[in-house]
């Protein structure tokens, strides 16, 4: 139990870190969109880039929210899910910090979304389905 409590704290922190950094990027969206475009760009390109960024960030935040709900209700004590979630979100948070500092290209957001937001969300969904539909134990 002691261990799961430790994991629980780390998971909460990593989820929070990831969401905070996503919100920060959301705030700096205009500048980020500009830096992701070539120096000579058109109004249309900027608008498209803005929309792309908004979609990527909103999807990531949505999945994070879903995971937070699952975290507080069902998968709180699931060690495997905690490990997966901690790994993904710590990596995502650190990489996004670099993204924000170095202003690397915007496609990184999609890579991170694919590798660090989707896998924990899918396993969260699997646990929720297992618990609610098949009456399995959540840990």
């Amino acid at each position: 139990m002691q261990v799961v409590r430790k994991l629980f704290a780390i998971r909460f922190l990593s989820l929070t870190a990831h969401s905070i950094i996503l919100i920060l990027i959301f705030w700096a969206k205009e500048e980020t969109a500009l830096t992701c475009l070539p120096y000579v760009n058109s109004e249309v390109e900027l608008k498209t880039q803005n929309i792309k960024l908004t979609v990527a960030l909103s999807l990531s935040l949505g999945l994070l929210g879903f995971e937070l709900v699952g975290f507080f209700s069902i998968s709180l004590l699931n060690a495997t899910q905690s490990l997966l979630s901690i790994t993904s979100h710590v990596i995502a948070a650190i990489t996004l910090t670099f993204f924000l500092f170095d202003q690397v290209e915007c496609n990184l957001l999609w890579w991170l979304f694919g590798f660090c937001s989707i896998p924990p969300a899918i396993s969260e969904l699997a646990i929720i389905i297992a618990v609610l539909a098949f009456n399995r134990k959540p840990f």
Partner: protein
Amino acid sequence: MALIDVHCAPLLVRYRAGIFSRASLFTLACLLLTCICPLLIAYRSHGLWPRTASYVEQPRVTFRHEVLLMLHLQQSDQFLAWSTFQNLNGMLGDSLRIPLVKANEEDRNRDGKFDVLHFSLEMPLASSEVVLSADLLLTFSYQLHRMATVKLQGMMYASHSSPLPGSELHVNGDLMLTQRQPLPHRGLDVRYDVAVINGSSPFTEAYDIPLIIRAYQERNVTTRLDNSVKVWRVGSEASNSFRIAVLLRYPEQTIVYQPGFWEMMKAGWVQYVSILLPFIWLFTRIKDFVFQNQVLSTIPKHPVKQHHA
């Protein structure tokens, strides 16, 4: 009797799990992250593979004793010229005049390489002739040996003009190497071991200074006069000679080159391993935590317990 620790050794606990278990997957993920993260950090922070590097070398320079001199006189379209090329001298006609030339190279620190060129030229003038501008072109053999052996023929071009009639021109400067691209790190580079002035050509184009400079500037590695100070000494109209004195130094050069494979690997490896070490430590701690606390189920084999059993 007091006891001291003379030696200590850790016991190895083995955690076993199936190949396709979650524990194996976790170990694999840890291994990949340990190896890939340092690589990404080293690469993203720039300079993992140095594309260029530099070294300092004093070149082996020798004056080729090829001179092209042109003096413009006050009387329009009159000039005096002299060169070390027979073909050109033959074409100059009345404008040809033979000066007194002295040149010597000095090895100041006795390292077998010349450090300074003293060049002086004295052109006799008639009393009616007044010099307003001078063009001087000297050529050199230039060699580098420390990394790649680079042999090239370079030149020094000094030009000065003044509205006041001159009696002397003093040029004091350095012969510097100009690179448009990095040199190779090994081998022999004789791309530019080609004469700056084609002395065997019977055509005037071969001795036209703008054309010579145009062809010369096409080269990627050249020498030129740099850090130079020119002094134009105003002379009286009655002076019967025009003197040019050149003091040219051959200083040490910072040469940019392309590092070889092993130099690049060494630089990359040093950076990679220094970032890898903290990651190995971190992931070992994480794996210790995960397996000691049985976050992922494994079968631990303790050496001590086994011994007792």
